[in-house]
């Protein structure tokens, strides 16, 4: 038998969580170090997986299949291809960095914090590697619980409201998804995601297929989140502790997008393309998310809330790319050109999932870093920090520029691919969506760069706003947290092939199967 590498990745955090539970509460440093060490196991293995998938990203690798509930045909099924592998790597990287960063900032209830965080990590890995609906659903929901508690216990002022809102919104989506899963099961007789996709559930019955489609859509669109289901996100992000926001934006939102590309598109290509082209609800919601999210960002005065809304906008690109991929099935035109463009759009969408995780994860770390000092995130309190904290300024500039899609940094390629692909398939939406890029540039440059860093530093205003907080530049551990992220942004910016090669092969295989 082969080494069950995906099981080890998924359940190493669970082992860590159990170990944390056994360590006495007072031994906080032991708990912190143990969690960090444990989180290196999936991180290292994720690189191993990456190297192995590289050869043939269009197929499933490291497949594990054991019977779990034979009566119901529920299997323990795992496997990764070129789409899920970058997500596994992203999860592992952001988790390790979060554990590291938290070990310096979380002082309250350390044991519970790491216990929950490790459980959360397990849930996220589980979703990305599951190939069985029930298995997928179990991890999907298990990840929900620790996040709910992380927001509710370690969050800010309105944490209780935000936690419950987060939980209930997601629960509504996931129960809708559960009904859809059951519907698909009775149609196809299998809980295997791949087999169900091959069987094309409800292919001849559009109303039922549409019903199942909307069930999944609700579950995933709430998580992404797509307008109009996004209202939990600003609250959840704003109130969550720094690393909670990092994981929420960096990974949890991708669970929704991943669901679309892994489940909805392969299972319901016909319905998806119908609602992407004939009745273009999905791309309309996507461009609303893009433009509306960006406009709301411009109106924010809370730095963290601003970045939260920027996620709504940026995840809109993912949805736009996905709908272009789906619409390519029914658009009339040169088949080769359509296939190339659809693949580009999907590559853009799945690359955006990765780069947005890295970039926005970085931005939330940066917000946390300034908040640790100022204890406020009010943009009006800042100004002229550039001269006082040059190192922080530099890192923020790089991350911000990556976010607005500056060529040479990671964000550029994903946006370029999305719009290039979409423009060929559904040009109208590409044209409207491009406005989002302009607004993004505006809020990053105007709101973040200008309000926080430019101008004269006004000591009196700072003292009044922050109650005489001491303003120091980044510490060594903050730099250690940020450097890997900056390195990835630059690496992907200069050499996108390192990840696009995986995505392209997998997405092309996906499109050929539709």
């Amino acid at each position, binding site marked *: 038998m082969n080494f069950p590498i995906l099981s080890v990745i998924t359940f190493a955090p669970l082992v860590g969580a159990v170990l944390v539970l056994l360590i006495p509460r007072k031994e906080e440093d032991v708990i912190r170090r143990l969690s960090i060490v444990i989180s290196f196991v999936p991180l290292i293995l994720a690189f191993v997986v990456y190297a192995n998938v590289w050869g043939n990203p269009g197929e499933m690798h490291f497949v594990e299949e054991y019977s779990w*509930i034979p*009566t*119901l045909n529920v299997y323990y099924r795992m496997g990764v291809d070129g789409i899920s592998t970058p997500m596994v790597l992203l999860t592992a990287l952001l988790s390790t960095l979060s554990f590291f960063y938290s070990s310096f900032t979380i002082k309250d209830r350390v044991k519970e914090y790491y216990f929950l965080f490790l459980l959360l990590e397990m849930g996220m890995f589980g979703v990305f590697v599951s190939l069985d609906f029930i298995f997928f659903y179990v991890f999907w929901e298990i990840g929900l619980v620790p996040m709910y508690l992380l927001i*509710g*216990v370690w969050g800010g002022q309105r944490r209780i409201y935000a936690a419950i809102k987060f939980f209930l919104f997601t629960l509504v989506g996931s129960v809708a998804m559960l009904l859809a899963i*059951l519907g698909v099961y009775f149609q196809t007789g299998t809980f295997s995601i791949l087999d169900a996709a091959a069987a094309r559930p409800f292919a001849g019955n559009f109303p039922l297929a549409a019903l199942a489609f909307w069930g999944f859509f609700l579950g995933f669109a709430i998580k992404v989140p797509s307008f109009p289901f996004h209202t939990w996100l600003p609250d959840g992000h704003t109130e969550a502790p720094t690393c909670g926001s990092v994981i929420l934006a960096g990974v949890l939102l991708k669970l929704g997008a991943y669901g679309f590309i892994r489940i909805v598109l392969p299972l319901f290509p016909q319905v998806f393309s119908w609602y992407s082209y004939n009745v273009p609800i999905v791309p309309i919601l996507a461009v609303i998310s893009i433009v509306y999210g960006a406009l709301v960002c411009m109106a924010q005065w809370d730095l963290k809330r601003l970045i939260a809304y920027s996620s709504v906008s940026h995840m809109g690109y993912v949805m736009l790319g996905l709908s272009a991929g789906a619409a390519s099935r029914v658009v009339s035109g040169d088949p080769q050109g359509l296939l190339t463009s659809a693949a580009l759009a999907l590559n853009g969408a799945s690359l955006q999932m990765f780069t947005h995780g890295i970039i926005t994860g970085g931005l939330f770390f940066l917000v946390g870093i300034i908040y640790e000092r100022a204890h406020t995130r009010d943009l009006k309190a800042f100004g002229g920090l550039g001269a006082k904290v040059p190192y922080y300024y530099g890192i923020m500039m790089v991350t911000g520029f990556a976010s607005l899609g500056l060529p040479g940094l990671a964000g550029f390629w994903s946006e370029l691919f999305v719009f290039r692909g979409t423009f060929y398939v559904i040009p109208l939406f590409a044209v409207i969506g491009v406005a989002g890029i302009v607004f993004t540039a505006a809020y990053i440059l105007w709101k973040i760069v200008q309000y926080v860093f430019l101008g004269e530093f006004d000591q009196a205003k700072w003292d009044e706003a922050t109650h005489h907080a001491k303003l120091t530049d980044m510490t060594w551990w903050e730099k250690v947290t940020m450097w890997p992220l900056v390195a990835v942004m630059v690496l992907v910016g200069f050499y996108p092939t390192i990840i696009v090669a995986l995505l392209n092969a997998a997405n092309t295989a996906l499109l050929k199967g539709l």
Partner: protein
Amino acid sequence: MLLPQLFLVLGALVVFGLDLIWRDDARKGWLPYVALLGLALALGATLYLLFAADLPSKPILGGMLAVDSFALFFQVIATLVGGLVILSSLDYMLRRTPYRAEFYGLLIIACLAITLVAAGADLIMIYIAIELLSITSYILTGYLREDRKSTEAAIKYFLYGAMASAAMLYGMSLFYGATGTTSLSAIAASLGAAEASLRWLVFPALIFLLAGFGFKIAAVPFHQWSPDAYEGAPTPITAFLSVGPKAAGFAVLVRVLLTALPDFRPDWVAVLSAISMVTMTLGNLVALTQRNIKRMLAYSSIAHAGYILIGLVSWDLWQSAGRFTGINGVLIYLLAYLFTNLGAFVVVIAFEQATGSNQIEDYAGLARTSPAMAATMLIFLFSLTGIPGTGGFIGKLFVFGAAIQVQFYVLAIVGIINSVIAAFYYLNVVRYMFFEPGAGETPAITSTPALKVTLAVTTAMTLIIGLYAQPFIQLVQGAVRMLSG
């Protein structure tokens, strides 16, 4: 075949007897353990019958009792409930009343009644067994004579119960009038052959019968007794009422409908679907506003009766691999619910012992003062919500799966909406335990070894059913297959 029942009767009699013989309190302290021994023997005998013995294919004792794996499944439930409730009531009763022997004795008799209800193959037997269960339950509810709430609860429970029993008896008499027999299988045969002039009687008879059974499972509109009875009864008895009689009610409901009235399935499916939807919705909506945790759990238990009914109406006995059968769902749901709800009540008992309060607000800060207690409560609440990884999810998966399988989409959707509503009030408790700072000094909850054992068992079983459901599903399948054969 009746060895388990024999052990239960003996256990009760020995407890009563020893209470008269033993004079000093030190020795009387052993009485609950004697009761536990009786229950353990009964459980052992039941398991032996279930796994090792050849069961009779026809009802025994003149067609009165069916000793089949369906009945034995409920015997397992009954003895487990009895044992766990006794364990959780040791310290609770010690502080509240000097007369404890009868409490344990009556509890065993109530468990005996559950086993008889589940095995009843004749309307007379069913009626007597249900009455036995009801009367012991009334006494146990009003056991704390000094406590006015307890007394009030018992009176209310008794008045509603008497009405329900009367209606049920009337329904039974109609069946007798229509068919000339009280045996369930004979009723089915007779109704199958009966001419149309008699068949119209079945529907009203069914409605009257459902009043009695609905009372036991606390389904709307026969639920009004439950919040008051739950609030006033001694908390271990509340725990018992929320799982024991409910399980018995479902056992008899399933058996009567499936053996006596299979031909009238459209009738009872229509009635029970409506009851199911109203029960879930009303239970959940009213639970939202409750501030007392016992009342909240009472309404939640009403709502759960509604979910379980989904399984019953989505009846599908065609048991092949990969199918969700509704009746399996009923049984597995009950099993998961048993451990989950008892566990939640154990936490309530421990909390009440330490603080004297049952208000949900007073749970504020529990995660800080007693993290282990709060964490187990969290697991139970998530299981009640139906989060995967817990037994509650498997139960919900089964009943909703069965509903979709037989294309009762409306029922499934109403059920799903309800489980989201329910999440709100379960999370409210989580919110107080974990997110709200405690007001002042809430004492740490020190639980007794017996409570710890109960909590450990219930938590472990809630998680085991959630994570490795297969053996439990097989157990349930065996129980149901017997019924359909």
